[in-house]
């Protein structure tokens, strides 16, 4: 229904509850970015903001330290022997590929991957149904965790 230049709609309404699961990732953009016009009025989005998740927790806390220590203690050190990709290598390969122009196979693979990611599949993205913005009264009344102050966005133009 919605026509977009490539790769299909990034957010699809779909028939039921699963449609728009990738709305989860776009939520921050729709709610916090976009053009703001001063002389317009904003409807209350209090309920909707409940969907947002806390900003990345700074890892400097005793709880975090203990959690990491425990995770290390119970780690099976022999299990994961496959060496993870080294990023410098990854970037190098990628740049090289980009410079030489894309190989056919790589490109169609790319489209597959992207389509997959657009259709949304992480379990975390499935849950917003109960977080429907018209929150229950008690949900709205519940003390919300304060989000840590945001660092300002960094913007650069090429």
């Amino acid at each position, binding site marked *: 229904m*919605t*026509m*977009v*230049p*490539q*790769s299909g*709609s*990034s957010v699809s309404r779909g028939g039921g509850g699963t449609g728009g699961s990738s*709305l989860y*990732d*776009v939520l*921050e*953009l*729709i*709610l916090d*970015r*976009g*053009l*703001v*016009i001063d*002389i*317009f009025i904003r409807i209350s989005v209090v*309920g*909707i903001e409940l969907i947002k998740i806390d*900003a*990345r*927790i700074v*890892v400097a806390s005793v709880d975090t*330290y*203990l*959690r990491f*220590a*425990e*995770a*290390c*203690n119970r780690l099976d*050190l022999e*299990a994961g022997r496959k060496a*993870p*990709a080294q*990023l410098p290598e990854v*970037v190098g390969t*990628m740049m090289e*590929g*980009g410079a030489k122009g*894309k190989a056919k196979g*790589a*490109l169609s*693979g*790319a*489209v597959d991957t992207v389509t997959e*990611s657009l259709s949304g599949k992480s379990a975390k993205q499935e849950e*917003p149904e109960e*977080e*429907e*913005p018209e929150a229950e009264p008690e949900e709205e009344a519940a003390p919300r965790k304060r989000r840590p102050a945001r660092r300002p*966005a960094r*913007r*650069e*133009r090429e």
Partner: protein
Amino acid sequence: MALYVYAITGEDHPHRLDGLTGVGSHPSPVRTVAAGPLCAVVSEISEEIRPKRRDLQVHQEVLESLMADAVVLPLQFGYFASDDQTVQQALEENADSYIATLARLDGCAEYHVRATQADEDELLRQILQDSPEARDLNDQIRAGAQDPQLPLTLGELVAREVQERQDSLAAELVQALVPYGREHVTHPPSSPDFLNLSLLVPHDRTEDFLAAEAGLAQQIESGVDFRLTGPLPPYSFVQ
């Protein structure tokens, strides 16, 4: 009747709005309000609107439909004006700036990239492998050492390593993808993400960008999840 406002476009945008309905529990048709060289895309709402998730989706769908035809300035979700005159006034007051932004964004779409540490174990293994100090502390604890300071010291060390590694991976991912965009912007990521990047990608670079992104996603394996959304209206590039 109040007007919910979705976007600002140039007057030459085709505005194929047939069949599109707007936000609210009794959705009205989407229409335009013109003022000189600019148009606003709006729909009527009752002022008591309580936004729901489907309204976010409608907002997004109207914008996606518009952006398929020509450049748009997407409004942030949730803004309405009391009437047509207020909308026209807004368009007139900032006409020059809106026209300039439309020109700047013409021929581009936003792509949003996030990276998450989906599996921590592999990262922790790497850290223990690379840091003799962490390994030694871990061995002591596993051997039954009772000093309560040991786990704290180990945890602090590991936490620092995790943060550093994620930050440097994020920086390198940004560096790898930025050449494909005309502009880019990074925001503080939400936990458990450690990268939140938006790129303004010209249409003629989209294929290269997608191929590059997919290549990165495939090659970075150590428990990192890479998520791409787009093409999107250029939310991150209109202010």
